[in-house]
């Protein structure tokens, strides 16, 4: 079923910023979000009073909220948004902020994903992630989401014949992109042997299938094209964007996140297809989810992602499909909900010629995908956006 929704015409994404990642930090989430805001002001040359909208996604902000942040940062916004959607938060932040600016509810929205990571704190967060998780997953030893994605990975391997080396190939290729990104916590080259010989975490997942939790923040601004031009800020258009939640409740263990349900609408609204993309930023919490995004977003057929990643150059320098051009979370680290912002911010960076890693030559069009919130035995939130280089 095709749906027509209002376009995001006239709205742009700009000023991508990244607060350097750290494995652990003694600072709390407000520091990371505050630093991101400061960097947004620095990059845009706007005053704090010019930012009249604030959209925040954070896993470690409690007991504070986006409302209390306005007092932390002494701001007086007329529009606030909180995005508890994990890895889908950045795409959804852009969507919400774009509508707010289109409707005049805000002029400039700062979208920030930021989290801290303190020793031992992850256990408490995982144990109390949600009611279902607390009651029916954590007591079974499910270490955060590892156990669930181990089971999803096993099903995918059995159903489609993928093997560990296929997932390893993806991890190895992403690590090559990370070599150029000074912010990546894991930059050392990874060989397939390193991947296959790494310790088991939750079979069939090994160490390098799992992201490294860390602290950091990512942010960008949403405003009108006219304002970005006036400020001489390079920008990206939001050509189209979609979100879909709890899409696979009828499947035993789902082979998707929800992207299939909106794929046609996403591409139709952007008047393009997967073959037109100059890069792809997927949400790589685990390699199996990258495979599912490649398939469900139409880059290859269902169950064929293993062949696709082996036959396609995924590096920033190749003529294939540059994928997770800054190294992705599997190399950079997962700074909580900022992990969902990594691909979006890198996408804006590529299109405004300020990448963290290598620039994809002549990048004009890119796709950013997000996925988040494992509540019981599957992820609930999927989102994706098509971005286009601004015509400055």
């Amino acid at each position, binding site marked *: 079923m095709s749906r027509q929704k209002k376009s995001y015409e006239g709205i742009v994404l700009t000023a991508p910023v990244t607060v350097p990642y750290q494995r652990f930090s003694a600072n709390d989430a407000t520091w990371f979000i505050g630093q991101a805001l400061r960097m947004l002001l620095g990059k845009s040359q706007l005053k704090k009073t010019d930012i009249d909208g604030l959209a925040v996604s954070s896993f470690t902000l409690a007991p504070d909220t986006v409302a209390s942040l306005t007092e932390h940062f002494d701001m007086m916004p007329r529009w606030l948004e909180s995005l508890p959607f994990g890895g889908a938060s950045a795409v959804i932040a852009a969507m919400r902020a774009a509508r707010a600016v289109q409707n005049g509810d805000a002029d400039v929205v700062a979208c920030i994903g930021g989290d801290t990571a303190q020793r031992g704190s992850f256990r408490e967060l995982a144990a109390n992630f949600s009611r279902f998780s607390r009651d029916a997953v954590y007591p079974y*030893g*499910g270490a955060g989401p590892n156990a669930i994605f181990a089971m999803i990975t096993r099903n995918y391997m059995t159903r489609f014949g993928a093997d560990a080396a296929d997932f390893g190939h993806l991890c190895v290729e992403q690590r090559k992109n990370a070599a150029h990104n000074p912010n990546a916590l894991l930059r050392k080259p990874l060989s397939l042997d390193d991947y296959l010989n790494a310790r088991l975490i939750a079979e069939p997942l090994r160490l390098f299938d799992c992201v490294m939790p860390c602290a950091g923040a990512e942010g960008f601004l949403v405003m009108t094209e006219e304002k970005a031009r006036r400020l001489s800020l390079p920008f990206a258009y939001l050509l189209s964007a979609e979100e879909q939640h709890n899409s696979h409740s009828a499947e035993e263990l789902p082979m998707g996140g929800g992207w299939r349900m909106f794929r046609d609408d996403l591409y139709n609204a952007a008047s393009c297809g997967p073959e037109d993309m100059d890069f792809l930023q997927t949400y790589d919490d685990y390699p199996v989810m990258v495979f599912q995004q490649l398939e469900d977003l139409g880059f290859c057929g269902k169950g064929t992602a293993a062949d696709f990643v082996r036959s396609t150059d995924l590096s920033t320098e190749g003529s294939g499909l540059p994928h997770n051009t800054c190294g992705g979370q599997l190399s950079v680290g997962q700074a909580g909900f900022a992990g969902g912002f990594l691909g979006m911010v890198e996408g804006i960076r590529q299109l405004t010629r300020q990448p963290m890693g290598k620039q994809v030559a002549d990048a004009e069009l890119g796709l950013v995908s997000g996925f988040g919130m494992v509540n*019981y035995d599957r992820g609930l939130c999927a989102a994706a956006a098509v971005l286009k280089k601004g015509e400055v």
Partner: protein
Amino acid sequence: MTLNYPRFHKQFRTEKGKLFLQHCSECSTLQYPPREVCRTCLCDTLEWKTVSAQGKLVSWTVLHTGLEPAFENRFPWKIGEVKLECGVQLIVHLDIEEPFFFMEVSVELRLFEETLMYFASKHQKE
């Protein structure tokens, strides 16, 4: 790690070959994990109904590390997901040497770390 939530109490009744699951008094939906309202019709008059403890294993993993101290000396530890005959899916501990896809299993409650939890074992035909 004790589960003290009131909505769990009746779930932990035991009867051989049976499990107790939340059941909607209006639309007969069975559900797990326990909720405050029916997932289908949102009615809040939920009862506990016995269902067959048999099902099939739809996936599993062997944990080698974890966050919960209670498991520290137990790795490697197997857990899995079972689809019961009634269609409801449970995450369970596995008491199975060599799990395989769609293996017929029986689920029962066992005491683990002073808490009753679901364990699946190979279904023994009577």
